[in-house]
């Protein structure tokens, strides 16, 4: 699913060079459930931007679902994000002026799905996360846990093979956080590839494989028993 070969990302801060990623090689197979952990500054956010095709590496190779993306143009990357990746963010990142169903429709809008078809798909996705009774609620009328479920529904609506979750429980209380984790585990068992970024070990331990980053390098790559 994900093949990263010797990926480097160098930021120039004035005359200093910061090696945010310093030669990362990483393979994630289909239907794997991987978490990436590390302290802040370890490069996990940068890696997540790379995997999510939001940024381009300075050097190295990256292919997702068999497509080489490291040399792609902005518009092609937008298509990859749209078709291959479902994002779940720490701060939900829902559009506050749109209703739940409109938020879930967004990836489908950019995919070019027609109005009625789109609505049906969005409702299905919301049903899947147990929010079919909240279709027309705005984000500020929903609890944090519910907002994150809307965000998961949005990540699912375009049926991407990869779900990329960046600290999905970071802004939630323990109970809602557990609910969200259960949902992510369900997604895994239904066949999605999942990459989870977190700094909390007990969250990471719910996945099948933990990759620890430090100073832009992979420190440890181990399976969870």
């Amino acid at each position, binding site marked *: 699913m994900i093949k990263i070969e010797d990926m480097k990302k160098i930021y120039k801060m004035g005359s200093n060079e910061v090696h945010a990623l310093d030669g990362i090689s990483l393979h994630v197979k289909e239907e794997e459930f991987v978490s990436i952990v590390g302290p802040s500054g370890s490069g996990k956010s940068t890696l997540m931007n790379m995997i999510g095709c*939001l940024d381009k590496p300075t050097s190295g190779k990256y292919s997702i679902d068999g497509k080489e993306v490291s040399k792609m143009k*902005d518009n092609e990357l*937008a298509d990859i*994000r749209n*078709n291959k990746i479902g994002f779940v963010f720490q*701060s939900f*990142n829902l559009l506050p002026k749109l209703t739940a169903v409109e938020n879930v429709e967004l990836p489908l809008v*950019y995919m070019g799905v027609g109005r009625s078809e789109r609505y049906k798909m969005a409702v299905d996705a919301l049903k899947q996360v147990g929010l079919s009774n909240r279709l027309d609620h705005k984000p500020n009328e929903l609890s944090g846990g519910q907002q994150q479920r809307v965000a998961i529904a949005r990540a699912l609506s375009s049926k991407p093979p990869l779900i990329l979750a960046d600290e999905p429980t970071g802004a939630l209380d323990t109970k809602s956080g557990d609910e969200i984790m259960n949902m992510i585990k369900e997604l895994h068992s239904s066949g999605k590839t999942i990459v989870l970024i977190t700094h909390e070990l007990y969250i990471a331990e719910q996945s099948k494989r933990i990759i620890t980053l430090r100073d832009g390098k992979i420190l440890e790559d181990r399976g969870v028993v």
Partner: protein
Amino acid sequence: MKWLESVFMALKSIGSNKVRSALTMLGIIIGVSSVITMVSLVQGSTREVTDQFKSMGTNNITVSIMTWGSTRSVDPEDMVELADDNIDIIEGLAPLVNSGGTVKVGRDNISTRVQGTNKAYGVINNHNVTQGRFINVLDTERRLKVALIGSYVANELFNGKNPLGETIKIDGQPFTVVGLLKEKAGGAQHSDDDVIIIPYTTALRLTRAESVDTYFVQAKNAETVDVAIEKLESFLLETLKDPNFFSVYNQAEFLENLKEVQGTLTLMLGGIAGISLLVGGIGIMNIMLVSVTERTKEIGIRKALGAKRRNILQQFLIESVVVSSIGGILGILSGIGIAKLIGNFMKINASPSLFIIMLSFSFSAVIGVFFGLYPANKASKLNPIQALRVE
């Protein structure tokens, strides 16, 4: 993403920020409505003047003699004779002696305009007679003291009594009223109805004027206007020996000049109003830039979910075009309203032409594109990571 959908999205975004959108539109509304108002008032008033001149007939030619300080002069009888000799070209020629006079009946007296002329004047100047008769050849030949009076004069001096055959005194000289002119301007003071018409020969003697300095001439038809002007000019040049002593001009010429003046005026006022439209456009750009900054996060989210540059560009561009077009429509409506209102006060028909409506509408839409382009482009170029990081 489909076109119409973007329009709906833009309308929604505009609706969720009503006060700001209204203030943004205000610039365009004021701009467009001032263009419409200015242009329709100018066009309305010139149309009014043009129609007035047209109703007087475009076959009319005016001759002015300007021989002050010289001994040369034209004999009005020669002029009349010239007209009579060219009856196939010239319909009529009327000398005009304009003066003011005090008119007295019994103890009542008023000041009015006294015009000395001849038989042809009635035809040329659309003077109809309701009672009695107009001036005839005999009146002018024998310098008879006969007069026609306008409705204002009749009302003031005779107060509804039949004036025919009555004697009035103009500057102390007794005249017999032989006709009542048809009302032309509602019988108001200082209007065309506040007038007395007498034979020009009598008028020359009454005012002690040496010669006639204005002639009204009517050509037979539109085709003979130029020939008639030529005839008059060559005769006058022969008589006066100097083209500076006279001028011969035609209504059509005057109308053309008027049109030119209208064009300049429309362009000037429209231009001034156009500047306010431009200022409105800058207002749109300003607000759109603020909006882009404010919605950086939204742009980041949309990009992360797969929006391409052109999707974002389209979204913001359509939003600014929709704002300016709605502003344009409201501006057109209020412009028409204001023009009608002022037109009512000025008693002119100030309805804007379809052309100017279409022009100002498309101009406001173009302003939306032009001033929306920069903010929209800025939005579309935002880096998704940085945009997502904004709180």
